[in-house]
């Protein structure tokens, strides 16, 4: 049985976090194909480029909300405006616990919120389980 490979669009500017997120996926035993955008512009272009019935449409959009202030929002808005992504879960991943940031993300089209703990094990557990749940792989 060939394992299911999940398509994930990751928008994250911190390489340390990219490695950690991949480690969290691996530690869950998930196979994945990652499209990684490092910049907001690249992310918006990628998001705008998806078309319906496009075999490349991701099954999960993961967006670091700690991108330079306000800019992560424009990626969310672009994703929400593309009908091809209507059914794709959009998760914001952040180390911020400020209710203000969470509310802002939810208001702009995020439908879940993943917290990045500082503790390694907590990170792998929290991020891994949330992603698995969003992919329906748990």
């Amino acid at each position, binding site marked *: 049985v060939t394992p299911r490979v999940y398509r994930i669009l990751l928008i994250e500017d*911190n390489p*340390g*976090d990219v490695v*950690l997120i991949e480690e969290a996926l691996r530690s869950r035993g998930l196979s994945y194909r990652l499209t990684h955008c490092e910049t907001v512009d690249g992310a918006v272009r990628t998001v705008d480029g998806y078309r319906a019935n496009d075999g490349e449409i991701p099954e999960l959009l993961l967006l670091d909300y*700690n991108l330079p202030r306000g800019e992560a929002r424009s990626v969310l808005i672009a994703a929400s405006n593309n009908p091809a992504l209507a059914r794709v879960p959009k998760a914001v991943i952040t*180390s*911020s616990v*400020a209710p*203000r940031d969470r509310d802002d993300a939810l208001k702009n089209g995020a439908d879940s919120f993943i917290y*990045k703990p*500082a*503790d*390694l*094990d907590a*990170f792998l557990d929290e991020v891994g389980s949330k992603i698995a749940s969003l992919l329906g792989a748990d």
Partner: protein
Amino acid sequence: MSSDVSPLSMQLTQLATDCEQVKILLVDDDRDNLLALQAVLEPLRQELMLAASGLDALRLCLDNEFAAILLDVRMPGMDGFEAAELIRSRKRSRHTPILFLTGYRSDEQLFRGYDLGAVDFLFKPIVPEILQSKVAVFVELCRSELLLRRQAEALARTEQKFRAVLEAAPDAMVITGDDGIIRLANSRADALFGYTREEIIGLDINSLIPEWKPPEDDSDAFSGLVERRLSATRKSGESFPIQITRSPFESDEGLLITTAIRDATEQVEAEQRIRRINQELERRVAERTADLTRSNEALRQFAWAASHDLQEPARMVMTYSQWMAKSAGAKLDSQETDMLKCVQDNATRLQTLLAALRQYIYISESGDQNWSSVDCNIVVRTAISHLEGRISETSATVECDPLPTVQSIEILLLQLFQNLIGNALKYRSGENPHVHIRAEANNGSWIFSIRDNGIGIEPEYLEYIFGVFKRLHGRHYSGTGIGLAICKAAVDRLGGRIWVESNFGNGSTFYFAVPQGGPQ
């Protein structure tokens, strides 16, 4: 004196005794006639001077002033008319009444006599009563004139004194009737308005001070000095500011009003200067305030950005040092393990500090917290439940008197109680910690106190402890040094104040006071 003294003579006598004597000159070449005249006029009790010739009469007129001169017409040498002419020609005696005595009536004589200024003729033989009463009239006239002259002199002296007072006054002074017409002015007034004395007297004061009015009513008048700031006009038409005081007084001439006028040009200029300086100061304060507001806002943003942006690298250091420890753990020697642990500990500490700083900023920022009715008993119970672990670890007792319900922001009160109780547990002495919480109403405020039996605070630190990152103790006591700064920020937001009393080694009592009425 004769026994048949008439009522007139009595009056005359009375008059004579009442007043000082005046002089009467009797002129006749006949000594008997002179003596007879003297005898008749004696009852008038005036000073009678006798002259036997026109020349004698003239001589006496040089040195004396007479109420009347009785002059015999027919005399050898210089006759009465010639004498009268010469008497009249002298300034001093020009107006002295002359009565001619003559033996016969002739129209020619009469005309000549009246021409020479005679006031009357008496025909011989003299009837004593007529002579007496005629002379008495002149005596009376003379006296009245004297009296008038003295009164005039007295008035002049009074006016001189008055004028001296006016002149000595430091201000321009103008005296008007209630019609506003100037009756009197001092030289300062002349100079101030640019008029001569002659010009200013009789002017309407409104031509100098258009807004001048007599004091309006009794209360105004009796209050006397009423100071006003007005505008005045010089003769040249130039306007200038003045300050006046008016003071009314009743006089023989009716109500008079003294108006003292002070040139207020310098005062007005000084006021304008002060106003300009004040405006300049206000402008500078506003500028400085704007600068401070800007730099405060910049600092606030910097602190916010720092506390948020440093969070990510701190988290990375933390996570990766753990990963390193996990994956390389077995390969590291004990020194390397310690080094890695040091990295982890400091990353943890950095994170704690940043979290505290973010909390401080959150508490300090106005806005998103809501005022409501808060039961402090519940807040303290919540704070205690959050601290439960440390309370049982330290075998502490927390005692709480009944507390009020206040208009406040619950999260800030919770922060306050939790930080202050937490501090009491942290800075404990050898004994088991005992914390006592109370509240009392005082002067429109609620004063809450949190007393402990801990190590206390040295007096020199009392004023520093509410600052950010002010830690009095080293790493022996864990903490961020920001807890009390957060308390202060919270109390500031609640419009209150916070302070501490402590005897070093003998516990501390933290107080915070908040207005009973809620937000101000």
